[in-house]
């Protein structure tokens, strides 16, 4: 039998991954590295980040803008932010093209239980297109529940967690670590893919929103 025949008959796992629903990240380098070419929908994406202000939200803005876009043909769905550490600043979100009418801020009382309850309810309600949640500690069982809920509803569930949580087990479809690195005098956000269902771990440097954003703003004004 010819080698070509064998090649055609071998089942390759990444074909299954490609069929999954994704939402493009808006960054070509990152889209290329992720199976299907974007953030996985209907699954947990874990983002490990220590310290805020390193472009962790800007990485999500193109996808968030696409997700909140007003579409009369589609039902109104929320993108819920559960317990964000600071105030998501409405004018900045608008600058990134996000429709802020679709955002819902939820601040559960402290305690992991109520936070997980809020996440699960929000995902399960079927009226959320995306959920961004800040969760420090969550065990495998709780995450599995959330993963199932996200799968059921096709919801983009993002969990922001401290970097040391990456060592624990998790059913997440995508786990990435964010850090800030200096390359050619520009600060870039380094996305380290730790686990990726249907794809390969790797490191992607995402430029595109360097510190010159403000400078370019000035330039356009002149």
């Amino acid at each position, binding site marked *: 039998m010819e080698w070509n025949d064998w090649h055609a008959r071998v089942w390759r796992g990444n074909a299954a991954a490609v069929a999954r629903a994704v939402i493009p990240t808006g960054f070509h380098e990152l889209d290329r590295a992720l199976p299907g070419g974007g953030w996985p929908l209907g699954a947990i994406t874990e983002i490990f980040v220590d*310290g*805020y*202000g*390193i*472009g*962790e*939200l*800007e990485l999500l*803005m193109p996808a968030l803008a696409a997700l909140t876009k007003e579409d009369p043909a589609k*039902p*109104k*769905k*929320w993108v819920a932010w559960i317990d*964000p*550490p*600071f*105030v*998501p*600043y*409405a*004018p*900045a*979100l*608008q*600058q*990134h093209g996000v429709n*802020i*009418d679709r*955002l*819902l*801020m*939820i*601040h*559960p*009382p402290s305690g992991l239980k*109520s936070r997980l*309850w*809020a996440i699960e*309810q*929000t995902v399960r*309600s*079927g*009226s*959320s297109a995306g959920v961004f949640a800040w969760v420090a500690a969550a065990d495998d069982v709780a995450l599995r529940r959330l993963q199932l809920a996200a799968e059921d509803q096709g919801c983009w569930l993002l969990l922001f967690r401290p970097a040391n949580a990456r060592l624990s087990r998790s059913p997440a479809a995508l786990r990435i670590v964010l*850090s*800030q*690195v*200096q390359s050619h005098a520009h*600060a870039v956000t380094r996305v380290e893919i730790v686990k990726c269902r249907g794809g390969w771990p790797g490191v992607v440097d995402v430029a595109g929103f360097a*510190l*010159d*954003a*403000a*400078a370019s*703003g*000035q330039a*356009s*004004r002149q």
Partner: protein
Amino acid sequence: MARVLQSLDLFASNPVEAPRSKSQPVPSKSQLWIAVCLPSLAFECLSAADSALPAVVVEAERGQLHVVAASRAAAEAGIASGTKLHTAMALAASLQVFERSPPLERQSLESLAEWAQMLTSMVSVEAPESLLLEVAGSLKLFGSLDAIKTTLRAELARRYRHFRFCAAPTATAALWLARAASADVLQWRLLAGSLAALPLAVTRWPPEVRALLHDLGLRTVGDCARLPRDGFARRVGRSYLLELDRAFGRCVDLRAGFKAPQAWSSMAELGEESVDSTIFLEAVEQLLCELCAELQRRQVQIGGFELAFEHLHRVPTVESFDLREPTFDRDRLLHLVEDRLERRALPVPAVALRMTSGVFQPLEHRAADLFEAKPHDERAQALLERLQGRFGSAAVYGLRAVPEHRPEKAWAKGLESEGRRALVAVEARPLWLLQKPVAIEARQDSLKLVSGPERIESGWWDEQGVARDYYTAKNGNGQKLWVFRDHRTRSWFLHGLFG
């Protein structure tokens, strides 16, 4: 309507003149009234109605107690309505005596009226013991008058032991015929003849009027109708002439329609004192079943409700539930209660739960989507409601941009975006804003200013003016910060992070 009012005015000013010739009655010929008469309502509305012992209901009249209604055992002993209490007590040895309770009678009648709204939208309560239904419009729906009467009879038999009803083309005639237990009169040409034979007692006119008519030798309604109109009006009274005209269909007979109460309340008693939320939930579920059945029957929805926990020797604990959008969905209401009960423990045990609905609102009819169980907007609202119900409404909110230069005032909490568009800042704004600017120490080695300054000087008019120079800065950890220097204090503050 205008015509009706006009004709009414005409009669009020000069009721002595015959309104029209007798062959052309004024009211629409398409009306058909059923009058329901409950002769022993005063007795049957009491809880002792089922008792086999002789019992009577009495009412004071001119200083003496008279029997208004009697139980079957009492009736067999020879006690009838109108018997003096002394006589009644002599007739039956172990007589139970109850005082008449008009509120209970009214309640019983209104409950029947609410049920009767199933038969027709035009129901009128004729105190103290009658009900009028206009059923001409319902004939087609039910098929025939007999079908309506069968339904009515079954329900009346379920509720009362004694009842009579009768159909006639005018409301007053139906009422009089029902009081006399006559047969139905369905044709206009038979109406005058049937009414003429009725004794004057059916009119329930005051005793002195009836005595006067009796002295004149008049015994029946027909006798009165035969008298000259002006003479009758002068000697007896215009209002009685008007009533005769209404009965014979010579002038319009307007009745106040019954309006069911626009709220609902019910109580569930718990077997014993309890703080157990599972027991509460069972009771709540039962109450919600009743409430939602009521809502469905009335084709209405509610915007909120109250749940009161009744304690012994203490003011009830009241929990109120507000819905973002009115609903009639039992599960949605139950979820709200579940969440609230899970969160809140009662300080003292409760013995009963009382549920009081908010004001009924008319149902908005919406075409259901073929593939979606519920419209999505409604689901989005339900989620909001549930979260706010559990965490409090301050903990769940949306974002709004406000046209304002001061950064901390350029956003607000709120779910409904205002129509006007906010100013879009020209300079880049950070995605994270600190609730309050935090004072920082700006040293050249720790903080590198990357761009700026952007001067923001605004708000002198409301005592919260700012004068700041904003910079984008970077610290040693690679974090992008939004910092400013206050003009007045010359000190540095951190106000945001470029997340």
